[in-house]
Structures are given as structure tokens and as C-alpha cells.
């Protein structure tokens, strides 16, 4: 279902995992939108006006009304375009609660651990963060088993809420793997997630908006040098 020109705009930046989330959601729903790429190192007037509380991307502008916070935008898109594409959140209240729980876990607990690996200044700190990241992935592997019910995604046959929450971090996880030599999505430790990661990245709604690891590596190296 194509939106009228100018009706849907997304303020973001291509490297950001948070921006990737609403892009995947909009693609899943077949919604056309204008992508407003922020200039690196600068925040536009439009961004500051649209998200005065946090001044951060992504911001979805729907008929010029802003929606902020990546997973809130995903849920908004799922609600507004409920009759397009597949449902992102399941219909059953209990399953919705499980998807929301794991999304919170991924952002509040898991992401800080992989971010910690990247930021670590000593080998000990790096090892500690890595242990936490792997422990988190083990929990997510179990969650995947329960939620996917043998299918390819947390959402079952199609990409769902938790897929989007976790999948957004995949390329940055690759960057950390390449910079540290650690394997995060390890086929031996978390076989189901290793397969899932490939399926997610290969999906129609994801592959064109998923940034390339090489390009993210360049950004990561630039930041390190500063």
C-alpha cells in the first residue's frame, strides 16, 4: 500500500541500527517513504524540532506528526498499516507480551554487553563483556526456539517484532567480531540464531537497507582514531 508522496518520512542515518528497525517495518508493510539522511556530525532543524526530548534518530513523520523511539515506531507502523503485509506483532496478548519482553531485554541488557566489548580498554573487560554477550545469546536462542515454533523467524513464518529488535544489531555485531576476533553468533554456541542471522539479512525487506559491514568498519575505525 503506497503512501502518498510526502505522507511518510523517516529521519535517520544509514549506519544506525535503530534507524534500520523502522525501515524494515515500513518495507514489510510495503509503505513508500522518503528517507531523510542526517548529515554526519550535525543535527538538522527538522530533527531537533521533531524530537525535542532526545534530539535523536530515528523519527518517523507521518502527515508531519512525529513518532520517536525505534521499537515504538515499529509498533506504530504495525498498527497504522495493519491491513498491509504481515503482522509484525502477533495477535495473541500473551505472545505480544513475550515479544515486548525480549525486545526490552535486547536493548537494556544485550546491546550494552556488545557495546561493552567494543568499548573495553583491557582484555579482562573485553572478556567479561563477551561472556555477558554470549550468555545473553544463549537466552535468546532459547527464546527463539519457543517463539519460532520451528519456523525461520521469532515471528514464525515472517519477520516479527523480536526479529527486528535483534536483527538491527547484526552488522554492528559483525564489526565487533572483525575488530576483536571474537565470534558472537557462533554456530556451535547458538546454532539456531546463527541460521536465523543469515535468514534475516537475506530477507527482501532487509537486504537493501542493511548496511555493509565493510562500510561500518570504516566508520568504527574512524571513531577509534578520534
Amino acid at each position, binding site marked *: 500500500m503506497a503512501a502518498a508522496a510526502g505522507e511518510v518520512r523517516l529521519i535517520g542515518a544509514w549506519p544506525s541500527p535503530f534507524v534500520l528497525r523502522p525501515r524494515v517495518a515500513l518495507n514489510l508493510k510495503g509503505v513508500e517513504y522518503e528517507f531523510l539522511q542526517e548529515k554526519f556530525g550535525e543535527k538538522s532543524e527538522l530533527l531537533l524540532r521533531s524530537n525535542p*526530548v532526545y534530539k535523536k534518530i530515528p523519527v518517523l513523520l*507521518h502527515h508531519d*506528526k512525529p*513518532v*520517536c*523511539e525505534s521499537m*515504538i*515506531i515499529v*509498533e*506504530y507502523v504495525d*498498527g*497504522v498499516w495493519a491491513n498491509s503485509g504481515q503482522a509484525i506483532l502477533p495477535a495473541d*496478548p*500473551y505472545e*505480544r*507480551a513475550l515479544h*515486548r*519482553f525480549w525486545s*526490552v*531485554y535486547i536493548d537494556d541488557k544485550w546491546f550494552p554487553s556488545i557495546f561493552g566489548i567494543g568499548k573495553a580498554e583491557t582484555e579482562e573487560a573485553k572478556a567479561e563483556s563477551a561472556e555477558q554477550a554470549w550468555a545473553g545469546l544463549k*537466552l535468546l536462542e532459547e527464546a527463539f526456539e519457543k517463539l519460532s515454533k520451528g519456523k525461520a523467524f521469532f515471528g514464525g513464518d515472517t519477520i516479527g517484532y523480536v526479529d527486528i529488535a535483534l536483527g538491527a544489531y547484526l552488522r554492528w555485531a559483525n564489526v565487533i567480531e572483525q575488530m576483536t576476533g571474537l565470534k558472537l553468533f557462533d554456530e556451535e554456541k547458538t546454532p539456531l540464531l546463527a541460521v536465523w542471522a543469515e535468514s534475516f539479512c537475506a530477507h527482501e525487506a532487509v537486504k537493501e537497507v542493511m548496511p555493509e559491514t565493510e562500510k561500518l568498519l570504516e566508520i568504527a575505525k574512524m571513531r577509534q582514531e578520534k
Partner: protein
Amino acid sequence: MAETKELVLLNCWVSPYGMRCRIALAEKRVEYEHKEENVMEKSPLLLQSNPVHKKIPVLVHGGKPVCESLVIVQYVDEAWPDRAPLLPVDAYGRAQARFWADFVDKKIFECGTKLWKLKKEAQGEAKKEFTEGLKLLEDELGEKKYFGGDAFGFVDIALVPLMAWFRTYESFGSFSAETEAPKLVAWGKRCMERESVAMSLPDPAKVYELVCYIRKAFGLE
């Protein structure tokens, strides 16, 4: 039907997160068993129901656990859709409600905890964030009766446990709620007129007493 399944809330009386769940269940007039947990000695049911975080609140419905207070409140709203809607009907209204409830988590309760856990010298950043958070919430509330407008809802439920904790935050954060956030204080009083809120919030003096005890016990003085 949702009512025929057993419903248990694992909680701790002082937790603002637990208060949210109690308010939501009361708004929906749903009967449930309230199990008070001793967080120093967690029950096997709690450990089994929330193995990831081992924390309250947990709502166990027909043996199935739901964790994270805002996830629980949304679950309660969706499992009993026929009465007292807690979130707006329209998608945009819901997005706004979720945004502000998430803001309350980050800027009020997370910061507020730092106010009583950290020593005065370390508090600086947390206090600034907290008082700025209060101002933004005041702006968002404006002249409305509740955050949702005329209807008491999600953001009100997310924030109102602050009324039981304000005294504690004021004392350890060295500020006055009346001065920093007079509109919120007035809004809090309006919320307290609702039965669901009055029955779910403990006496602020008791919260303060417990926090003083915890601070002594953990050498935070």
C-alpha cells in the same frame, strides 16, 4: 475467557513497578492473588517465572508469566479489552503514550533510584536529569486532567507511583516537589482520588522509612 484462569501477581509493596500492575488490574476490576515477595529470599515461583531477571513484578496468568511492568500493563489492557481501556484507541495516541511511559522509566525512576543510592557528591548528573525530567513531564501534562486527557491511562499509571516515592527522592535529592513540579503534585492528588491508585500506593512515610533502613544496612550513609 481471561477471568477463568488463575491470576497471581508477584510483587513487593514498595516497588513502583509493582504499583503500576496493581493499578492496571484494579482499573480493569480483575481479581487476582497478590503474593508479597521477600526480595532478600526470592521464592521458587519467582525464580521460575522470571529466570532472566529474577525480579518483581511478575504477573502469572494461567501459569504463564509476564514480566516487565509496562509489558504487564499492556498485557492486562489487551487481555481484558472489554473494559477501562488503558491505552488510546488510535495508533498515534498509543505511540505517544508509549513514548512518555518509556521516558518516565528512564528519567524518573532510573534517575530517582540514583538519588537515594548514590552519595551526595555523586548525585549531580542524576539530580539534573531528574529535575529536567519533571519539567518536561509538566510541559507534557499542561492543563490536562490526566496525561491521556480526560481519561486516566497508560502514562498516568506509569508515573503515579512517583507519589509514593516523591518524599524519598526529595529528601535524598535535596529538592522540593512543590517547587520543581507543582502541576505534577496537583495531578498526583487527582490520581489519588481514584480507588485503583489509592489502594495500590503505600504510605510515602513507610517508603521513606524503608529506604533509610536500606541505606544504613548497605552503608550508603
